[in-house]
């Protein structure tokens, strides 16, 4: 056994690594699907589609700390008429929670919740993003916000060890409703374990006023029972690769939005749903039984792309905004209309509408009445 005091002089070759990595990122931009390349040449070609050129040119006035909310709640609309510096703090955790009755699961989360906390900023804001990873985490995590223009949507700057913190800033250039998710390898596992949420970049003029806003995010789980009875379920690799989920849910667990936890609205109100899909695999045929969407902002963009819609597609890693008025008391049922998922796997949520009856909107005139909800 050596007796001299240890002199740790051999430094890991990090500098060389950084230099190589920088080159590699450029070389592989087309492979990652995470970077935005310059398309100017293509744009100038004849018949090219005109492109928006959002810029972070707005003057940044003041500073504030973002208030994040757990689903189904949404932070209040932004009323300020100027851009500001917004500090967002989010912590990744790994914890055992209920997935369904009798089924607990080892979730990986943003902010202790699945889906992750909802972030609301304004177009033009400068966002200073603090990502912490809880010291008890077993693996590093990062964040890829689809609202971010830059390498990995933030993932390249936020690989965060357990017990660590990363900070990066970005300009919220494109308004819209965006998914964020963890993008540490193996990405499907981090997403399958619950690492996704949404960020709304509110357009400068704000969204039209409504009475209620809710955050609803679909995702699916591939749950394998633990070895011991009562042990938490974990990711079932084979089911994940085969895209055969055991559970398809709104807001992180079967029944997260039913019974006492159902969404609430009153007759005559206008409702807006910020709908996301964390995947990891399935595309959602999002439908509300007993309602028609007056407006759909397709794929979470800022334009009403369609009116009077029955079912709208929410892609994995994508979103949609739907608006409707509620005119009749009763229970509206949110489903993935790929209907086995709703009936057998949990993709079902409820919106209870209370208030004065409106028989002209809907009335049963003959036949067996259904039990009251």
């Amino acid at each position, binding site marked *: *056994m*050596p007796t001299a*005091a*240890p002199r*740790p002089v*051999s*430094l*890991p*070759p*990090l500098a*060389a*690594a950084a230099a*190589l*990595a920088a080159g*590699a*990122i450029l070389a*592989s931009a087309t*492979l*990652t*699907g*995470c970077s935005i390349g310059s398309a100017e040449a293509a744009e100038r070609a004849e018949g090219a589609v005109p492109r928006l050129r959002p810029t972070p040119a707005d003057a940044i006035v003041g500073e504030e700390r973002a208030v994040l909310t757990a689903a189904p709640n949404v932070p209040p609309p932004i009323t300020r008429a100027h851009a500001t510096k917004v500090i967002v703090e989010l912590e990744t955790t*790994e914890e055992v929670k209920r997935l369904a009755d009798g089924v607990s699961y*080892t979730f990986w989360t943003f902010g202790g919740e699945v889906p992750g906390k909802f972030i609301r900023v304004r177009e033009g804001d400068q966002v200073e993003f603090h990502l912490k990873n809880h*010291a*008890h*985490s*077993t*693996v*590093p995590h*990062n964040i*890829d916000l689809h609202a971010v223009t830059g*390498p*990995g949507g933030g*993932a*390249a700057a936020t*690989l*965060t*060890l*357990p*017990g*660590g913190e990363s900070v990066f800033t970005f300009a919220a250039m494109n308004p819209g409703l965006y998914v964020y998710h963890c*993008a*540490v*390898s*193996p*990405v499907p*596992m981090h997403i399958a*374990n619950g690492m996704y949420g949404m960020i709304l970049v509110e357009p400068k003029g704000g969204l039209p006023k409504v009475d209620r806003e809710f955050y609803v995010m679909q995702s699916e789980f591939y749950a*394998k029972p*633990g*070895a*011991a009875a009562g*042990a*938490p379920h*974990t*990711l*079932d*690799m*084979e089911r994940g*690769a085969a895209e055969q989920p055991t559970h398809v849910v709104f807001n992180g667990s079967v029944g997260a939005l039913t019974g006492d936890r159902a969404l609430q609205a009153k007759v005559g109100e206008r409702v807006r749903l910020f709908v996301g899909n964390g995947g990891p695999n399935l595309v959602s045929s999002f439908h509300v039984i007993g309602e028609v969407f007056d407006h759909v902002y397709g794929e979470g963009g800022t334009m009403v792309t369609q009116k009077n819609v029955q079912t709208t597609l929410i892609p994995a890693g994508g979103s949609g905004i739907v608006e409707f008025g509620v005119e009749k008391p009763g229970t509206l049922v949110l489903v993935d209309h790929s209907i086995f998922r709703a009936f057998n796997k949990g993709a079902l949520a409820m919106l209870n509408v209370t208030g004065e009856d409106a028989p002209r909107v809907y009335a049963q005139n003959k036949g067996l009445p259904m039990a009251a909800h």
Partner: protein
Amino acid sequence: MRRLAAVLALLALAPRAGAAADDAAGRRPGAEMVRLPAGTYRPLYGRPGDAPTAVAAFRLDRDAATRGEFLAFVRERPEWRRGAVRPLFADRRGYLADWAGDLDAGDATDRRRPVTGVSWFAAKAYCAWRGKRLPTVHEWEYAAAASATRRDAGREPWFVQDLLTRYTTRPRPLPALPAGAGNLYGVRGLHGLAWEWTADFNSVLVSDDSRGVGARDHDLFCASAAVGATDPGNYPAFLRYALRAGLTGRAAVETLGVRCAA
């Protein structure tokens, strides 16, 4: 009462084959090494068609280093105590953070738990103090690819699934050693206890050596991680490489410990 419950839970969780014999013989779990024969294995990153990587015969500690063993080290090497370590060599926020004091590694049970929250520099110095060294990534992965019955079980679905489950359901606190079933070589607790340091943990970042398909750090985020990997289904290996990619020499992480080689 809570402690008793925790201990009982751990006893139930941790297979303890051989534990009684070791204890009776008075051997410290980490003192014992096993010899691994020379062989080849297929690293996560490489080109399909590449020859498997050759690994020379080496010895590896049967168990991870315990808090008690690390305590003996810092008693003799005061510069590695929590209050004295140079910030350049260990992030003080995490370094031995679960110890109650510079020389207080807990009670007898605690002192048999794997030591964690040690930096690469400290782990390296510890192994040198033992007259050993840190295993290389290739050595570690070679040892870790073995199931109880097969040398290269990395492509067996049940083995992959078993490791994923272990990785996501680690007991906290970690159990007293020895714990974990031995693999084919008799190495215990490689999976599902603490992660473990390797000498060249960041070599994955510079593995390019002009072949153009090595893994780079960008490969460890985004879906592109699978590009250049020999086996996109080996999620446990991706988890290990992603952790290594996030490490620096001074990082001290609660879930990362050390096991020495020779």
